[in-house]
């Protein structure tokens, strides 16, 4: 269901990303509506991961990488000169392809790690938030009796949901997901897809996916990337039924990719 009146949360204009001299994202204009799920699809190497990593200024952490253009989060320009990338990342959370819980920490410590980074120490608040985030990430029932065991004792799918809970704990308005299920089995994948549909009430999601069925299942909007360019952007139902661009049609019907 697409709500056309919802406000814009994230908007890029002429966003370019470089690795050294190599232009990986070639000027993308892109809009994300609040409380929606926007999927980014495209063949390997099309710049979709690089693009999403520009949205929380993670791209620039790679040596030699830089980004140009503008990205607005509501009314702030996250590439403004005086913008601290650390503050950007506290508002735009990210979940990665490979589950990456902190190995030296327990499940509980992992969930509240972001809160502690933000300077929150109050124990009751940490506990409440941990429970709420784990519940939203559909993991609470599985871990409530072993919160103080190492995070690495969980299965791959549980670790990925733990990473989602860890990100939700800092309550970001936007959540970026970079192929969050590509390393998981079908059951873990469907759990994460269900939770995406649940949490979009609270958070706006941008998800990069390799899997077109996944895009069709979870997203309200879909963007198709090819060779660093945004080819087409529309409501998911239209993208997969009546694509405007020939290349989109070929990709979504499986002619290449």
């Amino acid at each position, binding site marked *: 269901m697409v709500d056309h009146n919802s406000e814009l949360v994230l908007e890029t204009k002429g966003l370019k990303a470089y690795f050294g001299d190599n232009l990986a994202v070639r000027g993308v204009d892109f809009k994300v509506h609040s409380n929606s799920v926007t999927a980014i699809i495209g063949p390997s190497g099309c710049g979709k991961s690089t693009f999403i990593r520009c949205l929380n200024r993670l791209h620039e*952490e790679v040596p030699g990488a830089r980004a140009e253009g503008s990205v607005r989060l509501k009314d702030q320009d996250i590439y403004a000169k005086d913008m601290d990338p650390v503050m950007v990342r506290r508002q735009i959370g990210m979940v990665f392809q490979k589950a990456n819980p902190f*190995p030296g920490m327990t499940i509980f410590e992992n969930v509240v790690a972001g809160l502690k*980074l933000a300077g929150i120490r109050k124990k009751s608040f940490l506990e409440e938030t941990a429970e709420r985030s784990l519940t939203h990430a559909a993991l609470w029932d599985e871990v409530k009796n072993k919160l103080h065991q190492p995070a690495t004792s969980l299965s791959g799918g549980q670790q990925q949901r733990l990473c989602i809970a860890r990100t939700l704990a800092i309550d970001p308005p936007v959540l970026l997901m970079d192929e969050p299920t590509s390393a998981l089995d079908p059951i873990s994948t469907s759990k994460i897809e269900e939770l995406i549909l649940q949490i979009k009430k609270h958070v706006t999601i941008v998800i990069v996916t390799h899997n077109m069925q996944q895009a069709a299942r979870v997203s309200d909007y879909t963007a198709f990337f090819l060779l660093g360019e945004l080819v087409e952007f529309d409501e998911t139902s239209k993208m997969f039924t009546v694509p405007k661009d020939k290349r989109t049609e070929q990709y979504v019907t499986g002619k290449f990719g």
Partner: protein
Amino acid sequence: MNLLQYSPRTHTPIAIPQTTWRIGNLATFIRKHLLQSPGMRFGDKFFLFLARLAGFSVILLLALILVYLVYASLPAIQKFGVSFLYTSTWDPVREVFGALPVIYGTLVTSFLALFIAGPIGVGIALFLNELAPKRVAIVAGFLIEMLAAIPSVVFGLWGIFVLAPFLRESFQPWMIDTLGFIPLFEGPAYGVGKFASGLILALMIIPTISSITKEIFKTIPAHQREAAIALGGTRWEVMKISVLKASRSGIFGALFLGLGRALGETMAVTMVIGNRAQIMPSLFSPAQTMASVIANEYAEATSDIHMAALAEVGLVLFGVTFLINFAARILIHRMGRSQNA
């Protein structure tokens, strides 16, 4: 020797009588790992034999050194027994030997060195791996490894001519004036002694600690760092939770390897330790370490029991460094495993 009667071509295991299990086990072991290599060409077999011989010679050498040390120190072991380890009189004239002062001297100087070099070494590794631009990291890393290539006698000379006079005239009098009420910093200021040795040792083990720690930091995958970055961690916080916390046991391993090196270091320490086998609380007082007492007295030891006592000190040192290195390897190995998991 009964192991030679088994031909290398015999591929079937031969039952060893239970009664000769010691020799028998050794023989099976050698046959299995040194001589037997089924289904290979002669050239490969021969090469394999040479390679295994080279490998086993290390173990053999270690065993022979140990055996010789025990043999050489037998007179002292028989005369002083266990009391050698906990009595504190070291008197070559009266031929009474207790190793406690030199054990004490070794431990104090080595741990002092570790205490100083540990934070600096880990800090250098953090800087080189996490903060420095690539070119700076390469040049600085190279310079630090050069520090390890300086012969220890050169460190010793520097210690005698530069460090010790500075400590005697400036640093130690000031410390004694301000903190002299603590026994650790009591006077008088000799210059040479445990403190000078600890400083020199610290300089010598910094490259060990920093280069191993750096290698460990390198094994931490990028996605671990990104986890902390994406949660809104500052540079320091990313280092703290993704790098330092994840490599705790590896850092301990690196520290232990540095400690192992400090324990056995001889030349530089002999030159600045002050050579007095006595237990004194002050860090500024002269002392003696296990390595330095051997280096100092070996050439002048006239009596058999003196020689044997020095050999036993060598045996104790061998044992301590062996244990420390062993512990370090286990820690580093564990670290590597948890990273792969």
